[in-house]
């Protein structure tokens, strides 16, 4: 199935383009990122390292206090070349845009590749929950999804990353040794086998390599 898809799209393997240690042929249509304590800084570092022409959409669940307004979006937009915005209910997902889950709402992906919000009960004490975003995105993008778990002091995102892997997607976890809070990356590493464990500053370059591979293909 995957093979025929790749053939149809005329994509071969370009392992040589990947950084050393990255041995997987990655085909992705979207990226999901989850972070908790220490996450705003980590997410900011990744997003600000991507060029305006970045060809994939990025969906972000960052644990944040329910009363926080959209200030974090404004701050992040200022230092990023890609467009950063709060996810809007039923809005189409566009490439080169990072969508942040609004405080106190879960962010989900519909089959027609639009966004949905929900006020369903907290998952892992969190709304937005990383698991909720990861699982719904995985249902839609299946193997063509990259999931990234960053710093955090709980275990949200572990089940979601496992789900992404079960559907054939790619899993990246921030190296716990370089994470401000290591509980969340550790929980993710315990829950599933992951493709890459990378220090924070290596994550954006890895993503660029992956999409570079995609563009050349």
């Amino acid at each position, binding site marked *: 199935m995957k093979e025929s898809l790749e053939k149809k799209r005329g994509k071969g393997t370009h392992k040589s383009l990947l950084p050393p240690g990255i041995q997987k042929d990655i085909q992705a249509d979207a990226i999901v990122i989850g972070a908790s304590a220490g996450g705003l800084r980590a997410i900011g570092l990744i997003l600000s390292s991507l060029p305006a022409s970045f060809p994939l959409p990025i969906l972000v669940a960052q644990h944040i206090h329910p009363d926080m307004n959209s200030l974090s979006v404004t701050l992040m937009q200022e230092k990023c070349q890609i467009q950063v915005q709060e996810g*809007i*209910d*039923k*809005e189409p997902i566009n490439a080169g845009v990072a969508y942040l889950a*609004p405080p106190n*709402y879960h962010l*989900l*992906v*519909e*089959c027609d590749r639009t966004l*949905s*919000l*929900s*006020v*369903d*009960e907290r998952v892992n004490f969190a709304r937005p929950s990383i698991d*909720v975003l990861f*699982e*719904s995105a995985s*249902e*839609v993008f299946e193997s063509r999804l990259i999931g990234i778990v960053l710093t955090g002091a709980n275990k949200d995102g572990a*089940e979601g990353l*496992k*789900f992404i892997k*079960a*559907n054939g997607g790619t899993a990246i976890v921030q190296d716990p040794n370089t994470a401000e809070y290591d509980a969340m990356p550790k929980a993710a590493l315990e*829950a599933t086998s992951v493709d890459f464990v990378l220090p924070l500053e290596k994550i954006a370059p890895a993503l660029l390599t992956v999409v570079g591979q995609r563009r050349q293909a």
Partner: protein
Amino acid sequence: MNNRAEIMNDMAVHLKAPAHIPDRELQRFLDQVFDKYGYDFRNYSHASLRRRLRHRLMLSGIDDFGDLEAKTLKNRQFFNTILLDLSITTTEMFRDPAFFMAFRDEVVPVLKTYPSFKIWQAGCSTGQETYSLAILLQEEGILDRGLIYATDFNATALEQARRGVYPTELIKQYAAQFHRAGGKGPFSQYFTSRYDSVLMDKSLRRNIVFSEHNLATDGVFSEVQIVICRNVLIYFNRTLQDRALSIFHQSLGRRGFLCLGAKESLLLSSHRRDFEVVRENERIFRKKTG
């Protein structure tokens, strides 16, 4: 011993492959549920439905979505469980205090000029927001002039709403939000405590009519001055959102108010030109004339 069993149990859940529900199968399930039971979830957000159904699969220990479908269609009692799973029940008192503050500032002064008024709160679930509204109107001295239709398709939730009994552990949060919403007196005057729950004051309920109404299948039932429907439309797709907004538009009398949830907007809707914005951030709109 017990501990060990629990650990084993956790491991079993942990190791089980998560269920993937393809959209085709979900659609077939929703079609059959509609045919058999008349509840129409076909235009609900599939992402949310899928999450809830996956949760039910896990709780019931069913591996295959087809088996869940068969059981739902065969077993009415199991369908009732599914119906509860699929209804939106998350609600709290004075959620988004800024909205209630804006309602006091923008809507209440208009209501005070009316000899009587009707409010339709669509999707009231277990009633927390309905009581919040009644408390606010009581404080403003106009509860007696108003009639609140509070509707939901979920009969079980409505029954809870009618009872007006809520866990005491939530009251602290509700009280804080009540005050941030501009509430003046002590919050405790609106309920009586008994053991681990509170009973909302009967006087709040005297002008509330709780009744069944399904935004997916039912239509207009009364002319009202205000429609409040917060955090319900996000569970619908665009088609059903537009259906609901049409019903709201038809229900609203001249210059009626429409109040939506903090992240709900008319921007993507075909009805965006039928309403003017009263308060952007608090999502208060007003029906245009003509």
